[in-house]
């Protein structure tokens, strides 16, 4: 019981993650930006959004302070959300609702003047309908049939509607030139994030999976100008790190959203067991940075196409696009195993898990399946399972070396 209480307290405080030293200045920048978001007294409106299908280009063009709201809530915040949702929502959607609670919520969420949610999964749509009780909220449609021209044209119209709503919030118009300029800026940031990730293709990556998640965190909290200045410097530094050392067991984490603060699995894999996450197939890892937005022509259609063309969420149709992307990323990053983790009650990744797992297994990649939430009570069990999986991968590596020697 005492242990559980201690775990709760630890989770509630959310200490700074044990990042690599070069990442600490980035972490400090993010913390400062969050503090400013909450505390700065100015007339600049704060906009928040939940999903990686929301184009921040328009929020930035309007001169708003903006951030993706993707925190893993503390047990208290999850409990606040659960007051509305009962138990049958994932902990992420509960955290989103609970974060807005006027007394027990998260100050960062409570600082938000307006929430935008492109309707991704039905649970987040429902969560937004509750959140509307606390803060003005605009819900927008996100098509599923990502390959259809008519769906793309419809999404363009929704993005224009979003532009108008954002402009009204900011009290200033947003021109096509403004949007074009932001597309260039955010593409630079996306390309840079992808380059950071590609450093992980090295046998001995100069940044950990947790480091990369911190960089992604920065993408969603920092203004792009700030991000580019800091990240370019960091990239130069990391790209010069010699590629030597013992090749760690290389893993991909795939599945549901891994929220800001939901680091227990990555910490377990990297800090406690010593393997390395070299790529993520989820919407708070590499996934949103595999594509850029077209830089010519109608900027609204470019945004519509660009966001629908990004590595798809499993709610998009056809599901094969998501499944094939997962396999492709695993091969591209030469992973030895995949940890497929889905949040309990996540329909997108829970119901369809067999499709992903079977595909990876057909490619000869072992998979560990984990059903997750934001509690810490199953740490021991989780550790045992992950350790056993990595042991199997290590033995497999030995077998492969043996096979190669025998063949020689």
């Amino acid at each position: 019981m005492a242990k559980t209480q201690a775990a709760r307290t630890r989770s509630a405080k959310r200490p700074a993650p044990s990042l690599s030293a070069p990442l600490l200045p980035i972490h400090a920048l993010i913390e400062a930006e969050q503090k400013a978001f909450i505390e700065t007294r100015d007339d600049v409106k704060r906009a928040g959004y939940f999903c990686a299908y929301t184009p921040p280009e328009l929020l930035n063009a309007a001169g708003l302070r903006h951030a993706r709201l993707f925190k893993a809530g503390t047990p208290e915040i999850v409990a606040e959300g659960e007051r509305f949702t009962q138990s049958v929502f994932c902990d992420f959607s509960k955290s989103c609702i609970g974060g807005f609670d006027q007394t027990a919520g998260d100050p960062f969420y409570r600082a938000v003047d307006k929430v935008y949610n492109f309707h991704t999964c039905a649970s987040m749509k429902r969560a937004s309908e509750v959140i509307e009780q606390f803060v003005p909220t605009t819900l927008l449609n996100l098509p599923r049939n990502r390959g259809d021209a008519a769906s793309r044209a419809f999404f363009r119209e929704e993005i224009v509607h979003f532009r108008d709503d954002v402009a009204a919030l900011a009290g200033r118009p947003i021109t096509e030139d403004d949007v074009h300029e932001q597309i260039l800026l955010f593409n630079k940031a996306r390309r840079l994030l992808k380059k950071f990730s590609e450093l992980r293709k090295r046998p001995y990556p100069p940044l950990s999976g947790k480091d990369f998640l911190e960089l992604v965190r920065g993408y969603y909290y920092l203004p792009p100008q700030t991000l580019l200045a800091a990240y370019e410097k960091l990239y130069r530094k990391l790209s010069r790190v010699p590629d030597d050392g013992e090749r760690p067991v290389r893993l991909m984490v795939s599945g549901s959203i891994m929220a800001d603060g939901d680091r227990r699995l990555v910490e377990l894999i990297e800090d406690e067991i010593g393997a390395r996450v070299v790529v993520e197939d989820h919407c708070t890892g590499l996934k949103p940075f595999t594509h850029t937005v077209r830089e010519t022509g109608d900027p609204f259609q470019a945004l519509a196409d660009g966001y629908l063309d990004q590595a798809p969420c499993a709610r998009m149709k056809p599901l094969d696009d998501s499944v094939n992307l997962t396999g492709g990323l695993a091969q591209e990053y030469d992973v030895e195993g995949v940890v497929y983790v889905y949040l309990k009650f996540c329909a997108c990744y829970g119901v369809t898990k067999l499709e992903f797992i079977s595909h990876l297994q057909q490619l000869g990649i072992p998979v560990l399946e984990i059903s997750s939430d934001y509690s810490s009570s199953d740490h021991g069990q989780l550790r045992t399972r992950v350790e056993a999986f990595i042991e199997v991968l290590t033995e497999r590596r030995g077998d492969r070396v043996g096979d190669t020697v025998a063949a020689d």
Partner: protein
Amino acid sequence: MGTVLELDPGHRGRRRPVARTRRRSPENSKALKALDVLAQSHSFDGIQREAEDGKSVIWGGFSWDSPLIYACDTIPVGYDQLWAEDSRKSEAIAEDHFQVPGEFCSMIKAMIGRLHTDRDSKIKRVLHFGSGCEPISAVLELAKRDGYDIQTVDTVTAFRSAEKRDYAIAFLVHELQRIAHWLTGKPADEARVGEEIRRKNQILRKVGRTMELRSRHPLYVQGLATKQVIMGSMHSYGNPEAFSAVLDTLIGELEELDNDPAPLPPTYIPLVLAGSVGNLLLFQAIEESNGAILGWVYHGSHEYREDVPPLESLAHFVLDAQGRGDLGEAVGASVAYRRIAVEEEVRRTGARGIISSSITGCPYASLMQQLERDHFKQLGIPLIALETDVHREPPTEEQIMRVKAFIEMLS
């Protein structure tokens, strides 16, 4: 009609026989029998036979979109038939073969399990609306592995009451044209769709009248029969003429009861039911506890517009329904508005309490139930939230006890 002798309890202790006309009873109702026969004819086996006979039959397309589907000479079948039989076995297939996690609702598991069992049947096409329930969308992707041809009308939602964007209407019209092509290989015959809309509107008016009349005679058209009326209002059990005729008869019977010059005073506890009831035997528990469902907020009887082109009319219908919180999660209806309709029903019927029912594990319904709990608590109207599954076993003792205790408390 015969007469029965009955004691008049209101006559100051002097017991004298009173002649009273023998009332209609549900057991003798031609309409209710015909309704049941029609509903049973819409069985899984019956539908399969129609498909084997060469008729065009699809899963889905049975709700707001049914006029288009009928206009494409296709029979739309409600998803509910997928869990009408062998639902336990189907659920087990979902969990074992597809490894759908146990926390998801029995409805989606029974759906995918049954589709898998019948993968060699003639009905291989499924129509689905992308605005609806996420788990249904996910399991239908799994069904593709069994060779099903799944067509998704893309996600379009009016998130607020009266929030309809013109381009959303236009996009839905495009999507409906695409569905017509899928079914017939050619554009929708708009004149036919218009005819189907007018026919469905006639049925909806009759359903509305039936619901109004039965709210005064809830023990005549009891819970199960009412659900049959409501389900029929969507897809007419594949036979709009027959369903329309059944409604005419039923309205006639109810009007006859309504015109009774000496009606018996109600002896039941009036209730409003919000949502569907997965386990149909719960109706029995309610009625055995002396409760009667006077108002039912499940699927509305709002009509389609006839002043706009037919496909636009379908688009307006579904977007209006979403904004009203009508038609449920099948169309992605708002969770914020159904309570308004529930409150109206309570006021209209004088109900003493509300039974809010949902399927265990349904995120949509659980959230809406909580919003309703908060809302009606403020209004001082008692509400009990029930959760059931889609299986046909008797309700649990706990469920029955909760229903009975609730009704007893209201009495």
